[in-house]
């Protein structure tokens, strides 16, 4: 199919309109990039790239800024959220497509998607007022006294269980991204041709074997897509974690300590940043997140395209 349909004038104008519409994304993203670079130029000039990325110092008083702590916080919260969310989301998709009785499929599917509809500021308020106290009173002390005693693994659960920490933030993040992976995985599962599944059943495969050996490989592409989308969403999530992460610039091995992500730093400090260098460094952080997302998603896309080539047709 040629990109521009020259034969038919209506077709030509329609294709031009759609082309222009998709081009707005390029326009917007380059616009945002330019604004980010322009606003952070002061900080880039002072700290450079390597120093900014590796410095763990975030000190507004001495105007000495580095992104390492925020990058660490972003990775660890996102990583833990994915570890919780991916199995849960795939389980949900399997449940909806393979186990649930027909009359329950739609309601459960909608219910899970409703999780994505809840505004992130609500997640934030709920996290602060409801989840954090539960975490600090019950779950975190329990984790501390059980896994916390195991050597090596125990380092993850040290410190005072305040409920305002990496663990709580990750749990909230994971709840927020479950529906993204789940609904896309479900749609992908549904695309598996019934014929293929039935032939597997006819040779005596169990339900799980059909899911594992037929449905999952067939729909890998979609599942990856869903995970990539979740990852993108989790990296940039702000309000939901801003209330429960504590915004403490430190690199810590314990999940019971406060940390800072790039987004939380922005949300907490952007409106009160009083000096130009401070504000510029915050923009620099945003730029780092922007580039980070770019790399992560480009890698995800690379795998998706490879998977596509492998599984299509």
């Amino acid at each position: 199919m040629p990109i521009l349909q020259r034969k038919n004038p209506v077709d030509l104008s329609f294709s031009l309109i759609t082309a222009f519409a998709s081009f707005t994304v390029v326009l917007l993203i380059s616009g945002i990039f330019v604004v980010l670079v322009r606003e952070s130029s002061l900080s880039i000039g002072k700290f450079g790239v390597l120093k900014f990325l590796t410095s763990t110092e975030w000190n507004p008083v001495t105007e000495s800024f580095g992104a390492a702590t925020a990058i660490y916080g972003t990775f660890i919260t996102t990583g833990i959220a994915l570890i919780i969310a991916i199995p849960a989301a795939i389980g949900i998709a399997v449940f909806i497509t393979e186990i649930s009785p027909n009359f329950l499929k739609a309601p459960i599917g909608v219910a899970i998607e409703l999780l994505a509809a809840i505004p992130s500021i609500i997640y934030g308020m709920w996290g602060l007022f409801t989840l954090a106290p539960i975490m600090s009173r019950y779950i975190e002390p329990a984790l501390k006294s059980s896994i916390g005693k195991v050597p090596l693994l125990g380092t993850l659960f040290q410190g005072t269980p305040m409920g305002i920490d990496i663990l709580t933030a990750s749990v909230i993040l994971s709840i927020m991204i479950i529906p993204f992976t789940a609904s896309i995985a479900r749609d992908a599962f549904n695309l598996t041709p019934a014929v293929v599944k039935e032939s597997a059943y006819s040779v005596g495969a169990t339900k799980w074997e059909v899911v594992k050996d037929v449905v999952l490989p067939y729909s890998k592409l979609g599942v990856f897509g869903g995970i990539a989308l979740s990852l993108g969403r989790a990296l940039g999530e702000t309000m939901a974690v801003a209330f429960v992460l504590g915004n403490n610039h430190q690199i810590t091995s314990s999940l019971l300590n406060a940390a800072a992500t790039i987004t939380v730093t922005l949300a907490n400090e952007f409106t009160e940043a009083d000096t130009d260098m401070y504000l510029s460094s915050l923009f620099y952080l945003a730029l780092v997140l922007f580039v980070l997302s770019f790399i992560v998603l480009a890698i995800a896309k690379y795998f998706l395209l490879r998977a596509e080539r492998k599984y299509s047709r």
Partner: protein
Amino acid sequence: MKRIILLVVISVVTFSFSLAGAEEILNGAGASFPYPVYSAWAYDYYKATGAKLNYQSIGSGGGIRQIANRTVDFGASDAPLTPAQLNKDNLLQFPAVMGGVVLVVNMPGVKAGAVRLDSEAVCKVYLGNIKYWDDAKLKTLNPKMKLPHNEITVVHRSDGSGTTAIFTNYLSGACSDWKARVGAGTSVKWPVGIGGKGNEGVSQYVKKAQYSIGYVEFAYAEQNKLAYTLLKNSAGNFVEPSFNAFEDAAATGNFDPKKHFDHWLVNAPGKHAWPIAGATFILLAKDKKDSSVKSVRFFDWAFKNGDAKAKELIYVPLPKSLKDKIRAYWKANGIY
């Protein structure tokens, strides 16, 4: 479906234009700390004069930038700008209302006003040098109290805030160790403790965590019924946070119109002065005279009629002497 969309488009567009330009609103933005009192004044001002004033809390940093970019009629900041900064952006500045920052503690059975602290003790607690409630230093300050051997959970703000700026200025002024190691600003690199978002967040943490200490605006301590401490002021007296103590600080604070009132109201010399007070400031653009005159008219009205309202909301009105200084400053700059 298409028809519905069309209908919505038409109604929205007509709606938006038919009502456009009907009335003038004075827009102000900035510090979140004075937001309740400014909005209360604006409400009464509208009822009294019919003029609308729309104040929005977007943070002091935001307020400074908005007035520098001239997107609002006045900006507001909890931290005073230096004369150099004001000149750079061609701005005027004056204080509008005050508040006090108090230290609050959570210990079983300990009531408001029971614990006595001085600047050295507060400093050492926030530096992490004093780790337990039964530290010798705290014991000498509170000889009659039975202080427990429990670790102190230090609570501070996680977000940038004027409250933190006032508090860290107090510590920097009273304690050289703090000045050298941490310094003062809207957010600092805290040596110890956990961070709560907003005065709300700090109040929540202090309420929740036993044996904790935090700093909040006086209004939050009152509203959340937190146990505030007494503090030793520069005159050597232990004072209780109260309107009188804040007013005494303001009256003895050295606000100089020549420096555009750039002054931190901490460690004021008054006998009964509360040591951690702070004014919140209004910023005006010199070149937007019309906006500035209208803004000044509002604050002049508030100075005359707003004191009771401010007190009701647990803010501290400026003392008369300071109001007069501000009016003279307005006059000198041709906006009054």
